């Protein structure tokens, strides 16, 4: 055999090429043989070793190196029950998934009587149970546990060094913290600061000329975020014990307008009750400004139910929003549709639907005609409305726009009862005779526009439903279509669809309502439900099941009241009271110039964080002396607020003391004088009910399934909100804390010295509520669920018979009513936990109120008004479209929330928030996908990357909320001698609120808020955009 040289070279060359090309493959083979990529575990691979094994016979085998505990997630405000896997040796959280007992994480959820062992087996692959109705945490819930070990956590009390917001701190002892915060003094070498002790003045009025403002203690304000199951404890301290009136959550910059609209419908503008569609049984749902399965609480449960209902059930739905959400996707097929709408014009859509329903006689007249609950129930309706109740519409009448009452008709009653609950409403019976609503024996007349002779005077009255109808008839469908950008035929089609499913269709809204006409948009939309008569019906519009009250005057302990309890009084700093009752109004009226007020007042709003800070810093109606920020970040969350107050907030003369309790340094508490560490996620205690969307009662438990990381108090407890407040109370000798602070029904008293003293007793109350107390946890439940670690403190704190019952709750992560209890025992077509409030088609409190700037009367029913500034001037009148061609809106993804940026696993999936614009707009503005642009509003400008996206309406630019952080790790603070790590990823993207608008019509030039609800306006901001 002879091989030529040439062929030899060629063969060797070929071989060499092969060797090079196959090197990686060969390497993998050899690596395998050498065991290089051998997985750590045979089945789990490189993931943590499984927490337990369930064999084919259903036998459970526990991995004792891990603990599996049921507690509550805090990755957003939904408060889903979760299952947390912990490595016992390191105490680290390994994984987070769903709690099968919790309806927020599982559908259907396990009954409480299932043992912890059975719950573990239920989530396994045995008989496919673990996959059927799988118990899940969402992606964010899973990822945010990472924040527990974040290098940016505050773990020891900090005191600022140098100017506010300079990013420099010194760690101080708990004793020093207490001493300085309580006693004040020349704390920063900037002059004297009043401490909390001096500021707790319950006697001296803030202003002797305006005693209605209340005592000086009101100059201390507390801002919290959301009730994470601990708010009642904080309120006990700052309101009932310390005594300030000003304790406010985050509602006014979350979904405040929606809640206010709902509050108007259900007649309570302060607690603002609301409903959700019964997703599981609905046939048609109109989602407006909310994205089922993407955002809107409880988004994960909604996603499960909506996906099931559109697959196996009859549900189809339309999502109305300027921005496309996950809700309309290829999986939803024809069952889900996206309908883009111009920002802030949802009221036009709603009123068009209402008009069509009236014109085509598709409103539920039977339901509407029953003027009281009992009569409605007798006639097969589980709720009732004030549709037939009469409203005074006589111009100049002292009761103009108010409900006509029995006392108006001459019924004698004590003055303090007049116009209150017992003062009945009036309607006309079928013969046209006035009858009191609670005495009606049959259906009342619906459409009434007549003149009654009352007290010898002729008074024109209309029924509530007549007023709504008149309002709807103000414009025709083409005009509404023009306003909202949805064709008239589509509007009519939606109305027809809504009225074609009996009680099984509903309308729901949420965060998309945060526009300059948000309140009326929401009220109009939600009023459609009353017209459809779907409230409390299976498949209709249903109430939350609520929870079990932990902090009430409960069956085991009284956590509601205590000796020396303060009832805070005065004028709230958010000005959510009538301007007409203030001394300022009286003074101005005397000068014959009652309007405008120095800043708007919001008599029909709840506590307003949006207004508290601008007012408190400028001293209107009075000045703030101390601000407590507990897990609160208004500077990041409120559109335009940073522009308005950042300078003043940095000035200790404007606001002498800022104390924050927070596990992190955020955009707001970066201005604080002191930051006190707080427990985070799975380190905390708490009892919290589902926000909404769960028709059965659900109370999730939060308990420290891992040990808190913060440094300890001298008594050896981890520093946190509770231990700090207890120490403050003791240092100031305030009531309600320390020895004998808690009593039981037998009159025995107990100390409140630790968080456990409070939360475990709250748990005992929960365990004993309802028809009968919960069962006892077994030994095995306690061991398997990790409650074992806390057994000593349970036994030390609770009475012997309470230990096993509270352990029962902790071992199951809460108390949950069985899923089958969602519907009424007598009539399964009705809800068991109904919305008890009457549906108000006319809300007299809104209708009788006046705009405090213009003095014009507000409308008392759902209505379409153009987005407007505080005095009623339409936004587009001041910022016309030719100068500001775009409108900015905010939206949320399912991944990022305002405080999850530190979860870098999420950033791996979704590293920034490019601004979405429509391809047509991109062409017109000559920008391309990925371009860096400058976006300007009258409130400022920012540079952002754009994403050209067909899932958005033309003329709208959408910014996802949750990015654009300056803090939470985006800036490296210097603490003592160490500097925090730098992580540029955490500063990614932009925050729409940085360019929020200041309202040019407000005398105080504060951020733009809805004129009724006082809710921050972040949808429909006028803007322009050009390439940077």
């Amino acid at each position, binding site marked *: *055999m002879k*091989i030529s040289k040439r*062929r030899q070279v*060629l*063969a*060797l*060359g*070929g*071989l*060499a*090429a*092969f*060797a*090079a*090309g*196959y*090197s*990686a*493959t060969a390497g*993998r*083979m050899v690596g*395998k*043989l050498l065991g290089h*990529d051998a997985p750590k575990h045979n089945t789990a691979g490189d993931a943590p070793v499984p927490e337990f094994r369930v064999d084919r016979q259903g036998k459970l085998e526990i991995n004792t190196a891990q603990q599996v505990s049921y507690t509550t997630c805090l990755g957003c405000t939904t408060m889903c029950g979760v299952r947390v896997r912990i490595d016992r040796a390191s105490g680290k959280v390994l994984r987070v998934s769903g709690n099968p007992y919790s309806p927020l994480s599982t559908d259907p959820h396990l009954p409480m009587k299932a043992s912890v062992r059975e719950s573990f087996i239920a989530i396994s692959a045995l008989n496919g149970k673990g996959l059927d109705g799988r118990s899940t945490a969402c992606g964010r819930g899973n990822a945010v546990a990472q924040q527990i070990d974040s290098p940016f956590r505050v773990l020891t009390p900090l005191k600022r060094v140098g100017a506010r917001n300079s990013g420099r701190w010194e760690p101080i002892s708990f004793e020093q913290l207490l001493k300085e915060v309580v006693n004040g003094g020349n704390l920063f070498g900037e002059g004297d600061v009043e401490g909390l002790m001096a500021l707790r003045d319950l006697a001296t009025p803030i202003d002797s000329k305006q005693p209605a403002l209340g005592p000086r203690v009101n100059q201390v304000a507390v801002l919290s975020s959301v009730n994470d199951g601990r708010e009642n404890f904080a309120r006990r301290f700052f309101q009932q014990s310390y005594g300030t009136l000003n304790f406010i959550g985050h509602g006014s910059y979350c979904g405040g307008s929606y809640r206010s609209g709902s509050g108007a419908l259900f007649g309570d503008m302060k607690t603002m009750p609301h409903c959700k569609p019964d997703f599981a049984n609905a046939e048609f749902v109109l989602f407006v400004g909310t994205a089922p399965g993407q955002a809107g609480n409880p988004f994960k449960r909604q996603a499960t139910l909506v996906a099931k209902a559109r697959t196996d059930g009859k549900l189809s739905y339309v999502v109305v929003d300027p921005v*496309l*959400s*996950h809700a309309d996707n*290829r999986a939803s097929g024809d069952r889900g549709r996206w309908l883009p709408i111009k920002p802030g014009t949802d009221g036009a859509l709603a009123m068009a639907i209402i008009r069509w329903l009236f014109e085509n006689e598709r409103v539920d007249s039977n339901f509407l005609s029953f003027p009281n609950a009992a009569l409605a129930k007798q006639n097969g309706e589980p709720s009732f409305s004030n549709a037939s109740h009469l409203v005074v519409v006589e111009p100049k009448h002292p009761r103009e726009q108010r409900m006509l009452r029995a006392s108006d008709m001459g019924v004698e009653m004590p003055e303090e009862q007049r116009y209150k609950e017992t003062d009945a409403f009036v309607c006309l019976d079928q013969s046209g005779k006035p009858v009191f609503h609670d005495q009606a024996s049959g259906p009342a007349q619906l459409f009434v526009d007549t003149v009654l002779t009352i007290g010898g005077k002729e008074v024109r009255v209309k029924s509530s439903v007549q007023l709504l109808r008149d309002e709807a008839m103000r414009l025709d469908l083409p005009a509404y279509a023009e306003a909202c950008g949805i064709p008239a035929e589509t509007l009519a089609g939606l109305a027809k669809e809504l009225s074609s499913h009996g009680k099984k269709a509903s309308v729901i809204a949420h965060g998309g309502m945060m526009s300059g006409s948000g309140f009326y948009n929401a009220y109009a939309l939600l009023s459609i439900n009353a017209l459809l008569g779907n409230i409390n019906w299976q498949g209709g519009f249903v109430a939350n099941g609520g929870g079990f009250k932990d902090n009430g005057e409960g069956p085991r302990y009284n956590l509601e009241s205590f000796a020396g309890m303060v009832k805070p009084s005065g004028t709230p700093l958010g000005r959510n009271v009538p301007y007409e009752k203030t001394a300022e109004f009286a003074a101005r009226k005397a000068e014959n110039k009652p309007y405008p007020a120095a800043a708007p007042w919001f008599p029909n709003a709840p506590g307003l964080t949006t207004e508290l800070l601008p007012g408190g810093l400028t001293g209107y109606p009075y000045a703030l002396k101390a601000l407590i920020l507990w897990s609160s970040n208004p500077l990041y969350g409120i559109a335009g607020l940073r522009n308005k107050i950042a300078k003043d907030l940095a000035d200790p003369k404007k606001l002498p003391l800022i104390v924050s309790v927070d596990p992190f340094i955020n955009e707001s508490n970066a201005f604080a004088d002191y930051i006190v560490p707080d427990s985070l996620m799975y380190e905390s205690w708490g009892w919290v009910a589902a926000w909404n969307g769960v028709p059965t009662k659900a109370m999730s438990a939060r308990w420290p399934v891992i040990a808190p990381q913060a440094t300890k108090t001298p008594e050896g407890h981890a520093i946190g909100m509770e231990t700090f407040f207890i120490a403050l109370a003791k240092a100031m000798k305030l009531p309600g804390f320390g020895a004998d602070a808690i009593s039981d029904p037998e009159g025995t008293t107990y100390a409140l010295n630790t968080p456990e003293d409070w939360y475990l007793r709250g748990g005992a109350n929960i365990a004993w509520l309802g028809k009968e107390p919960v069962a006892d946890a077994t030994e095995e439940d306690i061991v398997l669920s990790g409650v074992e670690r806390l057994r000593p403190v349970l036994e030390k704190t609770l009475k012997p018979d309470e230990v096993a019952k509270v352990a029962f709750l902790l071992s199951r992560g809460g108390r949950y009513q069985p899923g089958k209890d969602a519907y009424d025992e007598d009539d399964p077509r009705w809800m068991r936990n109904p919305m008890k409030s009457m549906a108000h088609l006319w809300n007299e409190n809104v209708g009788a109120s006046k705009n405090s700037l213009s003095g014009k009367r507000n409308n008392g029913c759902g209505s379409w008004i153009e987005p407007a500034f505080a005095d009623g001037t339409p936004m587009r009148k001041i910022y016309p479209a030719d100068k500001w061609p775009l409108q900015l809106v905010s939206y949320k*993804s399912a*991944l990022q929330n305002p405080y999850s940026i530190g979860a870098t696993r999420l950033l791996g*999936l*979704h590293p920034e928030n490019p601004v979405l614009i429509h391809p047509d707009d991109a062409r017109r503005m000559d920008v391309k996908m990925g371009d860096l642009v400058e976006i300007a509003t009258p409130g400022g400008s920012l540079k952002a990357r754009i994403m050209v*996206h*067909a*899932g958005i309406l033309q003329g709208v630019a959408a910014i996802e909320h949750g990015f654009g952080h300056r803090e939470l790790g985006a800036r490296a603070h210097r603490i003592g001698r160490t500097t925090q790590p730098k992580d540029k990823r955490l500063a990614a993207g932009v925050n729409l609120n940085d360019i929020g608008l200041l309202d040019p019509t407000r005398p105080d030039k504060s951020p733009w808020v809805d004129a009724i609800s006082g809710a921050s306006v972040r949808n429909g901001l006028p803007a322009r955009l050009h390439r940077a």
Partner: protein
Amino acid sequence: MNTTVEVLGFAREPAWLPWAVQYFFLIGISTGAFFLSLPGLVWRHPDWRGVSRRALLAALVCGLTAPVALLADLHQPGRFLNFYLHPNLGSWMALGSFFIPLYLFGLIGYAWLCLRPQLADKAKQPSPIAGLYRRLAYGGHDNPSAIRAAAIAATLGAVLVLLYSGMEMMVVQARSLWNTAMLPLIFAITALTGGIGMTALFEALTGSRQSAALLNQWLARGVWATLVLLAAWLVLGLSGMSPATAEALAAMGSSFGWLATGVWLLGSTLFTLWMAVNYRNSLLMPALLALHGAWLIRWIVFIGGQSLPKMGSTSRSYYLILTPDSLLGIVGMAGLCLTLYIILTSLVPWDDKSSACGDPT
């Protein structure tokens, strides 16, 4: 029309790498060439005698290299064992792990039986490895019935390989370009034209042109069949009879890249046909064009098919880069083919001067 927008998009790496293209290309050519070897070596058809020998060489070169590429596509080659440790008879891919050995052992046995007389001849010549030849020749008998039996086994293996390799892709519903009954047929017919191309290439390398007309005749028939199948695929898609194909067409519709690819495929296929019909005596150009066609179809189906959105809306373009899993791998496999070709042609004579098996001279 509704526009699909990906709210949360992922750029997905293709799971089927160019290794897969190479495997399907090589195993296809091998089976195609094997079929070409049958007329001359089994049926002893005089016109095919020479060309069938080159075909057998092509079948061997490509058949021996194909599994090497396939192993690389498993990412972790050791995983191939799992096909045998945990047989899954419900999966076309897993079934393939049984079809491939059937074909390859059949082919090798068939080749050996065909080559025994030559090996015996070689053993008679003075050579340091004459002893090896002797042992390999194992007597050196020409045994037509044994050859027929081995050919039947290898034919069964070849048919099953063509079937499984087409089916394992056709069943993927998420890949709109793959999910069509046309796919196994197109793969099979281009395997044949590829086999013709490789055989023609080897024929050209021997310097003989006498079978050019025969090869070009069959190449033209194969290309016609390919065109008919492509047209049928297009009709199924445009008419909506095949929703998957319609979806694939829609996804490709507005892309210039896809338009260019389509024009290229059609143009080169027509050019191949034109060459085969009008230059019946040329070998090299039709050979290269046929190989190009077989490669192009597989590249489009694999790499293009994976660039079409599977669950979202994002198309992802693939770029050849100089890494082992990409361009370097392709060069490497070409190198292996070259080396094998040289080794095989050095060991055994394949040209017509040497005595073909069954040749009485």
